[in-house]
């Protein structure tokens, strides 16, 4: 069995933004966030397991005042440290503190190409603060990836988004179609782009690459609802990545907490090594023994691992079925009907966990 390579630390579910596409869970358990010593222990255990990359995310990781302490320790342990942030709270002094602590890379999310549209989607006045964040990141010489989640409202703005990212001197631009988990699934009907929008988006990406590709890498993450086969979710269940939820639950995928009866373990109760090798939540869908048809006898199972277990569960109630995205899945009609019934209607903005 492989060792894990990446750890995604969701430091908090709290966030000053209210993105309706947010993949965070809609309801979160009323449990306390891990304290600093617990996170430090998790980092040490992850390093012993061979984890190379640490992604600090959430919610908004900048909400944690102890973020720089975590970064410092992570670099001492040898991790590549990536900060995944909305940029809200990243003023010059905070950015300098984190740069000094050793952040390797910052992934900054934007909602849209301009202030009005961006703030509208974020449900908060944050666009200007994101522009400041981008400026201080690049001024410190830190590599910057701009991430924009695509949906019906902003998918027509790819050219302007790419121009903005280039003007902000981003090294990379990631244009990623919405994955339908958490708040995004709740808002799916309003977020799903039309087939025409998806075709136009692909053309816009090609033009943006021709224009900016020399200086900025443009990564386009396809809309799986319009693909014939599912994505190789997490590069396979329990194969490369560990996600730690704010309260310490260890998950094979950020959306796995919703799968009922998975037997999720918490890092406050078991070591990360025990969890990776033995926890039923990680072993349940590891490899391909768990598969039934059409995946079991399908040659593509080595490529896509049968798709996403969380998506199968969310749409069919059974995490062991083929991802309904697959055109060979008996549940594929669920995708077709979601696409054909999508309508522009009002969005539900993400709210914050009641406790924290």
């Amino acid at each position: 069995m492989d060792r894990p390579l990446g750890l995604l630390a969701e430091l908090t579910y709290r966030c000053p933004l209210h993105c309706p596409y947010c993949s965070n869970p809609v309801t979160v358990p009323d449990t306390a966030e891990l304290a600093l010593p617990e996170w430090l222990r998790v980092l040490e255990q992850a390093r012993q397991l061979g984890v190379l990359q640490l992604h600090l995310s959430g919610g908004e990781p900048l909400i944690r005042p102890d973020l720089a302490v975590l970064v410092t320790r992570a670099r001492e342990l040898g991790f590549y440290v990536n900060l995944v942030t909305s940029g809200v709270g990243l003023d010059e002094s905070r950015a300098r503190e984190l740069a000094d602590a050793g952040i390797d890379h910052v992934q900054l999310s934007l909602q849209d190409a301009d202030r009005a549209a961006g703030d509208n989607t974020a449900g908060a006045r944050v666009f200007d603060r994101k522009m400041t964040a981008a400026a201080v990141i690049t001024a410190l010489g830190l590599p910057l990836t701009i991430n924009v989640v695509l949906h019906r409202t902003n998918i027509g703005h790819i050219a302007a988004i790419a121009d903005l990212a280039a003007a902000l001197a981003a090294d990379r631009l990631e244009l990623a179609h919405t994955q339908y988990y958490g708040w995004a699934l709740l808002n799916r009907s309003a977020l799903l782009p039309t087939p025409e929008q998806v075709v136009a988006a692909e053309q816009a990406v090609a033009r943006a690459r021709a224009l900016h590709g020399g200086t900025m890498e443009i990564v386009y993450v396809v809309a799986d609802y319009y693909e014939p086969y599912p994505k190789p979710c997490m590069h396979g269940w329990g194969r490369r990545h560990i996600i730690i939820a704010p309260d310490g639950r260890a998950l094979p995928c950020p959306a796995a907490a919703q799968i009922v009866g998975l037997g999720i373990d918490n890092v406050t109760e078991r070591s990360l090594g025990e969890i990776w090798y033995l926890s039923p939540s990680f072993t349940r869908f590891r490899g391909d023994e768990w598969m039934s048809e059409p995946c079991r006898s399908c040659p593509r199972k080595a490529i896509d691992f049968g798709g996403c277990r969380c998506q199968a569960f969310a749409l069919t109630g059974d995490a062991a079925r083929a991802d309904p995205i697959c055109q060979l899945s008996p549940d594929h009609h669920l995708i077709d009907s979601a696409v054909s019934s999508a309508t522009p209607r009002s969005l539900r903005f993400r709210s914050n966990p009641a406790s924290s």
Partner: protein
Amino acid sequence: MTAALSLGDRPQLRRGVRVSTDPLSQAPILLFPEGVLFLNETAAAVIRHCDGSRTVAHMVQAIDEIYDGVAVGDVLSLVADLVAQRLMVVDRG
């Protein structure tokens, strides 16, 4: 998009990409935002010589002094590969 590499080019790792060591195998690795590349010793030596000031020709010579008989073609194709993966950038000589 990228022209073929020539001996006068000066390659270096792109911002956000760095060489490190795998804590389990002690093998050299390349770390970058989206992943990791496991390297062999020769590749690691080539990459360590790519500092943006040395030309490909210089590197081939330097590497040859450490590892006997490294083929120019191998060094060129490794660097070209890393450029294609956007892990390296080159100043054209």
